[in-house]
């Protein structure tokens, strides 16, 4: 607990933690001091001079002055009023007086103060030719900049530098002609701007606004709905601003302003003309509009027939990491209780199945051990296999803030990602050599005596076996395998081990391998060895990719576990569900995503229900996927847009988007948050939970839910980690599971006193060569992954004009050395060929990738045409998405 100080503000005593600034101290007791340049979470600047207060007869800026014991602070007096009034008059002397048509009107503090300080006529307005005349800038997809409305408070500059770490904006010129701009006055797109729009969020006036909202509604007309961003696992709180049942703007984010480009500007897909509005049924080869009644009757009849003729084992379902917990819970309940199959899986298989498996084995819980905010507490951070800045922008911001506070950052990744540029140590291993260098790190930590002996003895088991294994990985051997200089590896090991609080952050660069689970186990070993777990600023933190991928796993949309990770094979657990659902449940573990596609290809699976998933882009080896789907007797797809998968479906059911339904998402840090309905679904589209309920009812298993709240109540009764979670509590509380009962405050940090599985278990794992290694025919290693401007299979972001314009097509990153050898220039069309397929894409020649490595974003179908569905991780059934051998060559001229 921080020591406190007390002093008086306008005669009232305040007691605040040491270091609290006067502005905040006053606010704490309800005294509002006018200010324009201050913004919570950004370094105070003290430059607007409106927040001056009197302290013992002196004038000081209350935003920068720290409260001290015994101070007497006066926030208002006649003389302060006069000073502030004149300062405002001076600001307004060169501010356009166009509040009538300004989008910011009603939410503009300058406008409010002008009224409060009764500035009717301005005595200092100069002749027109002496005013600043600056053109409006709209030369980027999302942000409108009206420099004349800029009051030079610098919030945008600080947000860009301090929050996003980009330093794109700065002041230019001086005195009266100072302005805010980019280097050389370049358009934002030509700078290193990521268009996150935090500058817009913090701008007090109408200088920076969203282009999209121009003339779409004024502040007092807008209705606001608090919900959660539908892009990525960060799970940022999102506020939708509505007028006439249409979204016109999004705001919010962590600390009310931290969002990325997708969250802030990507909502426009909701109102896109392509939205699916009516049920479609394939008749004579064509998808044609039918009634809900006809569509559902057809599906129910078909499913019953197939179950009758081929058994429930012939039916499988893919749930969706983009849908709510309630949708997903009902989906798996439908598959298990109504159909009677365990063939339930979803895209988590292809991202973090190895984490769920590996961390489950080592720690007992397959999720982030700590929270996003908590990363800021770390003093040493190891980031590996995560392109954090692009895939989890808000987590990257937390890491940047930790680094600014002095944390040592170690980045280990074959690609020189954004964070590598700010890292203390950056190591570039060969793709697929993770176990080797992870064991190497453990070797250094152990042999140099940097390990936490007490922690290992008291809280862990199986140390000896692990010790034997790592002793085979001295840094010199690791150098041979992974290409990391031995001395560098030692430095990295020391930086992590010697940190007071060391955190590990990783993602699919670790998991998407044929030995993904081993990689995860090796990472977990490091945390156990150093005792960097169970405390603030530590832990093993897998960053989950999609907005509700954590939740859909929690809900049991996996072939081996019931909701709350209760093993299907455990008869007691199964029995609980059988009683709750009043049916007998299949006890055999079902098939995973890749296995399902293969089973469909072999006609063992006859019917597939897909909710909000697009395997025709997201699953490996697309030609096999296509074959599989085409062999199905029944393919039902529930989605919000036509996709590559709906093209081959027999029935397409229009679903409601995140903005059109209620429910909850669970983000990467296990935080359960309310998703709220803001607008009506288009046409006849319905929420997924409604579609499933109706279908189930038609198939003789009534699901009479009227609101997702009721579904959450049922989840709480069957899954103890959600036992205390309800929509009502989420209205006012921030809850991280496990939260076993209604009085439980949730668990932001796992494994604090004991591991979920009791003791932390070391695993001896060894390095094996990847299944595909470069050879003469296929000399490159292709890795795939996310990029900032797109999400999943682009069904949403591809329909956001600005995002699509930024990155309209697939590309392959190759190193300049390789490009030169192959005679390829940046932007050339190249042909990339694997043992599966050959695709043509543009080349991006960049040093982000090392020589011999190629990278393609998986948002476009080209990537997964090349990957392989063979060689699955034996434990998690993950495909080796990060490691395919390919050949890159200039594209032959088209005939």
């Amino acid at each position, binding site marked *: 607990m921080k020591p406190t100080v007390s002093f008086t503000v306008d005669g009232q005593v305040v007691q605040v933690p040491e270091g609290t600034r006067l502005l905040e101290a006053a606010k704490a007791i309800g005294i509002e001091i006018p200010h324009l340049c201050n913004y919570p979470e950004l370094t105070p600047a*003290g*430059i*607007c*001079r*409106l927040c*001056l207060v009197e302290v013992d007869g002196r*004038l000081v*800026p209350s935003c*920068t002055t720290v409260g001290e014991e015994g101070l007497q602070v006066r926030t208002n007096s006649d003389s302060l009023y*006069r*000073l502030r009034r*004149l*300062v405002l008059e*001076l*600001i307004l*002397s*060169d501010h356009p007086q166009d509040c009538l048509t300004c989008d910011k009107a009603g939410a503009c503090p300058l406008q409010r103060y002008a009224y409060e300080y009764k500035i009717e006529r301005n*005595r*200092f307005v*100069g002749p027109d030719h*002496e005013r600043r005349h600056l053109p409006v800038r709209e030369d980027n997809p999302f942000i409108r900049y009206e420099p004349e409305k800029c*009051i*030079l408070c610098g919030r945008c500059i600080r947000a860009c530098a301090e929050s996003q770490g980009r330093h794109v904006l*700065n*002041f230019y*010129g*001086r*005195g*009266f*002609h*100072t302005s805010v701009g980019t280097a050389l006055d370049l358009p934002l797109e030509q700078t290193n701007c990521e268009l996150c729009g935090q500058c817009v969020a913090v701008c007090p006036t109408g200088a920076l606004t969203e282009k999209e909202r121009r003339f779409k509604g004024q502040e007092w007309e807008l209705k606001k709905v608090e919900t959660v961003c539908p892009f990525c696992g960060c799970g940022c709180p999102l506020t939708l601003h509505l007028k006439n049942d249409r979204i016109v703007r999004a705001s919010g984010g962590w600390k009310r302003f931290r969002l990325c480009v997708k969250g802030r500007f990507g909502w426009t897909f909701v109102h896109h003309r392509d939205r699916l509005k009516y049920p479609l049924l394939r008749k004579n080869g064509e998808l044609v509009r039918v009634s809900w009644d006809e569509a559902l009757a057809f599906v129910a009849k078909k499913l019953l027939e197939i179950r009758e003729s081929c058994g429930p084992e012939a039916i499988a379902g893919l749930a969706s990491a983009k849908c709510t917990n309630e949708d997903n819970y009902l989906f798996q309940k439908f598959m298990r209780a109504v159909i009677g199959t365990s063939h339930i899986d979803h895209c988590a298989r292809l991202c973090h199945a190895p984490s769920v498996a590996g961390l489950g084995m080592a720690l007992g819980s397959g999720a982030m051990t700590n929270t996003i905010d908590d990363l800021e507490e770390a003093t040493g951070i190891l980031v590996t296999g995560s392109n954090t800045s692009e895939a989890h922008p808000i987590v990257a911001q937390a890491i940047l803030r930790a680094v600014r506070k002095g944390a040592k950052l170690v980045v280990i990744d074959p690609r020189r990602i954004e964070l590598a540029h700010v890292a203390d140590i950056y190591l570039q291993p060969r793709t697929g050599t993770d176990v080797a260098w992870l064991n190497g790190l453990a070797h250094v930590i152990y042999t140099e005596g940097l390990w936490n002996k007490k922690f290992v003895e008291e809280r862990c088991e199986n140390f000896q076996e692990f010790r034997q294994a790592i002793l085979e990985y001295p840094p010199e051997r690791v150098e041979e395998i992974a290409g990391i200089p031995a001395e560098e590896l030692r430095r990295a090991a020391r930086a992590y081990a010697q940190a007071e609080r060391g955190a590990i952050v990783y993602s699919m660069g670790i998991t998407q391998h044929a030995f993904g689970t081993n990689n995860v186990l090796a990472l977990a070993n490091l945390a156990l060895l150093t005792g960097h777990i169970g405390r603030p600023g530590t832990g093993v933190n897998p960053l989950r990719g999609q907005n509700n991928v954590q939740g859909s796993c929690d809900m049991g949309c996996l072939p081996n576990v019931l909701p709350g990770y209760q093993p299907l094979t455990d008869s007691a657990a199964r029995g609980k569900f059988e009683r709750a659902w009043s049916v007998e449940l299949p006890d055999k573990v079902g098939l995973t995503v890749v296995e399902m596609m293969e089973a469909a290809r072999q006609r063992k699976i006859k019917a597939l229900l897909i909710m909000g998933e697009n395997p025709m882009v997201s699953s490996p080896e697309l030609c096999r996927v296509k074959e599989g789907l085409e062999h199905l007797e029944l393919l039902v797809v529930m989605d919000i847009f036509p996709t590559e998968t709906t093209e081959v479906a027999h029935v397409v059911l229009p679903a409601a988007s995140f903005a059109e339904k209620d429910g909850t998402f669970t983000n990467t840090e296990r935080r359960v948050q309310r998703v709220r309905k803001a607008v009506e679904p288009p046409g006849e589209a319905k929420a997924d939970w409604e579609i499933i309920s109706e279908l189930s009812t038609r198939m003789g298993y009534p699901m009479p839910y009227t609101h997702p709240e009721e579904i959450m109540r049922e989840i709480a009764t069957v899954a103890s980690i959600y036992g205390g979670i309800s929509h009502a509590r989420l209205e006012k509380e921030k809850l991280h599971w496990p939260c076993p009962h209604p009085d439980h405050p949730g668990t932001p940090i796992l494994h604090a006193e004991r591991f979920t599985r009791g003791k932390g278990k070391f695993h001896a794992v060894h390095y094996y060569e990847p299944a595909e290694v470069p050879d003469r025919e296929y000399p490159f290693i292709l890795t795939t992954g996310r990029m900032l401007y797109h999400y999943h299979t682009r069904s949403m972001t591809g329909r956001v004009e600005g995002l699509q314009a930024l990155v309209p097509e697939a590309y392959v990153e190759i190193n300049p050395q390789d490009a030169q050898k192959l005679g390829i220039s940046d932007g050339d069309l190249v042909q990339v060929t694997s043992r599966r397929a050959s695709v043509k894409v543009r080349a991006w020649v960049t040093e982000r990738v090392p020589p011999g490595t190629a990278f393609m974003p998986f948002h476009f179908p080209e990537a997964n045409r090349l990957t392989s569905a063979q060689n699955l991780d034996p434990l998690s059934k993950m495909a080796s998405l990060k490691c395919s051998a390919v050949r890159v060559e200039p594209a032959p001229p088209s005939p």
Partner: protein
Amino acid sequence: MKPARAHVLVGVDDEARLAGADQVLEQLRRALDELGLSQEVQVVETGTLGISGQGVVVAVYPDGVFYGRVTPEVVRRIAEEHLLKGRPVTALRLPTAAPVARPAEVFGRQVRVVLANCGVIDPENIEEYLARGGYEALEKALTTMTPPQVVEEIGRAKLRGRGGAGFPTGLKWAAVRNAPGSPKYVVCNADEGEPGTFKDRLILEGDPHKLVEGMVLAGYAVGARWGVVYIRGEYSLCIARVEKALEQARRYSLLGTNILGTEFSFDVEVRPGAGAYVCGEETALLESLEGKRGWPRIRPPYPVTRGLWGKPTVVNNVETLANVPDIIRRGADWYRTLGTPTSPGTKVYTILGHVVFPGLVEVPMGTTLRTLVYELGGGVRDGRSLKGVLVGGAAGAFLTPEELDTRLDFDSLAERAAVLGSGAVLVLDDTACIVDVLYSVLRFFRHESCGQCVPCRAGTEALVRLASQLMVGSSTGPILDRMVEVAEVMRATSLCPLGQSLLLPLKSALAGFGKEFEAHEQGQPCPHCLRSVRAYA
């Protein structure tokens, strides 16, 4: 100085260079060679001789003859006639009343401590500085004094900052010495930007080693190992001379590691400024040094606790540091015999405007303004009468002839609500219009406002707009009240001294010359102002 029959001092500053000083020097040396005089006549390239507006100025000692507007042809004649034949070239001599050639009794009223070597020694030759007692103070400090004793000695001397504010240097050093945190830094503020002020330039050009010695002493006193001189970018000669001095000092083990064989190490680097007046403000200077935009910081914290890179930092003006060697060498007691009890020592002034002898002078603190204007400045030129004096630079105060007996030291001026500022003394005769002068002061501030805080950024603009109505006689209301209102708010709310200090020239001008302002406010045309407005347009 080397023994020689005669010394020829060539004042080389930026102005002289523009007038061809390099060619003059070259021709002089060649002529002396050809005349066989190079052994007996010593050519000394020195800083400004304190005379401006006279092109290249050359002085011949021991005769004490000054020549102005010297060209290569002229210097040849000087060599042939004066140096060879011993006949000064009367036609080319500056009048006896020319600045440094002030009548002996007037020149003698100066007390040169800081400027003692300026115009006398070759600033590019460390030997000449050493010959005049240079670096003795450093040797004394390093061998016989502990760092706290050095701080104490400066404190006892009651040396006050010559940058304008007059903060006791001893207190500042003690604060840095005792501040937690390391390393500590010594920063010399040589970003001399105050209009009409060239005192630091003279020191840097004419006696750079004095500054270097002062900095090393400061470093020793406060426990720093590194210092930096932030020199106004336009002062290219200063930069070159200081760089050269640093190099020589390093060679003589007076700078660098293990100075004079002791444990103490200290080094200095030069950083040029980039043309912003505000960077003369110490925290803006530090920001600029850190590679950021030169914007002032909010104080507190002060540089003594959180300065350069957030570490305890001494920031001293050039003149302040140049006082240090003499204080250490000759002792605080000696120093306190100069000046007044609360402001001991001397002060360098730049006298400019309508005076007979414009230029730089050094006199004890407490000298009256009358002495400065009428004796050292030689009085108002062309026999006109005095209208007023702007003391302390653009941010200084306008004083009237009735205030001529004001003593020039920190406390006496404070009593009159005026400031010593940069030591610029602008003398205005009865042809000047104070409104016009004030207008140029306001325009200067508008131009130099950094743009960071609202009151200064928009206030300087508003003041110029209002003043321009006075200038053209188009005021529509109580302009003067409004100007005072703006300046008072700027005084109260501006972030740094730049915006805060404008009230002083405005209020003092109104107090001393109110009638003139009221006449302008009432719309009477003034030929000076109209001319200025046309010139600015």
